């Protein structure tokens, strides 16, 4: 193994750790939000510092590899991809933290009916599934799995698009629950954004492995 190989392996291990950490954060934010568990929400809030610290570490390591090893070809694409994947994962960490803060900042548990009709839990399940798939694609260097991510995002988009009218109708009959309805629609927006972030990660994996740029391309 060359010195560069050792450094690239270390970088891969670090970004895998980031994948795992952020997926855990999203799972816990689901538990906190759906189960209205403030303790878990605070845990997510606390672990956000770890996500941020790991992001900085990976950024620095990428910078050092660029400066010291001048990677080329697939090595260059790998480091570029890791740099961008790192940024996307950190944003997902922020989203998990933001959703958990709604639990900490809300007085009463969310209405179960509201949770059900908005399908917000389905969005959590799909977001966690997409994160798990994209990590598998990265780990096993499998662009087929990465391409499968793009279709899964459709469900998040669909729920998000319907959310306005569902919540509007709900508020008409539950005027006392406006505040929590706003929290739920904010969580839905964030989860839809998570899908976009995971798609970005999938695009970077394909860029790294196939040297194809899929950004701003509708047919992937």
């Amino acid at each position, binding site marked *: 193994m*060359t*010195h*560069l190989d050792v450094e690239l392996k270390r970088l891969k291990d670090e970004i895998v750790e980031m994948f795992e950490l952020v997926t855990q954060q999203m799972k816990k934010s689901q538990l906190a939000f759906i189960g209205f568990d403030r303790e878990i929400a605070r845990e997510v809030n606390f672990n956000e510092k770890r996500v941020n610290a790991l992001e900085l570490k990976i950024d620095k390591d990428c*910078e*050092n590899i660029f*400066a*010291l*090893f*001048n990677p080329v070809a697939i090595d260059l694409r790998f480091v570029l991809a890791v740099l961008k994947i790192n940024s996307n994962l950190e944003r997902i960490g922020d989203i998990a933290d933001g959703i958990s803060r709604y639990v900490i900042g809300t007085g009463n548990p969310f209405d179960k009916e509201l949770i059900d009709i908005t399908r917000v839990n389905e969005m959590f399940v799909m977001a966690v599934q997409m994160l798990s798939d994209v990590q598998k694609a990265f780990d096993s260097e499998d662009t087929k799995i990465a391409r499968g991510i793009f279709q899964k995002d459709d469900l998040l988009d669909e729920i998000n698009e319907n959310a306005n009218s569902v919540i509007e109708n709900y508020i008409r009959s539950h005027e006392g629950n406006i505040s929590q309805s706003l929290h739920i629609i904010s969580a839905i927006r964030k989860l839809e954004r998570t899908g976009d972030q995971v798609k970005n990660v999938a695009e970077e994996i394909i860029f790294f492995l196939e040297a194809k740029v899929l950004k701003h391309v509708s047919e992937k």
Partner: protein
Amino acid sequence: MNKIETKNLNLYYGTFHALKGITMSVKANTVTALIGPSGCGKSTYLRLFNRMNDLIPGVKIEGDVLLDEKDIYNNKGMRIDELRKKVGMVFQKPNPFPKSIFENVAYGLRVNGMNHASFVEERVETSLKQAALWDEVKDKLKKSAFALSGGQQQRLCIARALAIEPSVLLMDEPASALDPISTAKIEDLIYELKNKYTIIIVTHNMQQAGRVSDKTAFFYLGDLIEYNDTNIIFTNPTDPKTQSYVTGRFG
């Protein structure tokens, strides 16, 4: 503990002031790269540590040069041949002796009176393995060293330096005469060898300094401009002159 240290070191070639008050220390089991434009003093600085500069007429050295905290110049008990057993050197161009591959590596042992056949064989094999050359030459040890490629000859010279088990290895542009594949082998070798040796390497190739070294010292006109962790030198150097040099804007 510092493996190597210089304190307020000045060196003159006649009236030319080649090294100006250099204070620098090197930890054991690290790779330190010396970089800088031609004539900046980096090779002169490297040659201090095995007293190669002594051979140049008109050289005057002031200050302290310490190896394992002992002064190697102002020390009457220090014999140069003993010093050179501790401090091996590899030069820019491969310089094998006109002998067999085996005898090239065994040479340092024999001149130091180590002639026991099984001991010499064992040490030659170990040194060739450390130099990542054993697999390529194990079946032709009796062949002339000149039959090897340039890259193999350079690794042979590294094996020859390692055979007498030095603790410090000085390398003066060890890969500048080699093709990219041989260069990569030498660089990987340096990365492996630092587990056992303290290595100081002079290089004109800044990317090489980045790839192989833990610390980098930038010399300019006989001054040590900046000495720091290599990743700092190549990402955020303190001195504007270092920044200009590593970005290729002067030198």
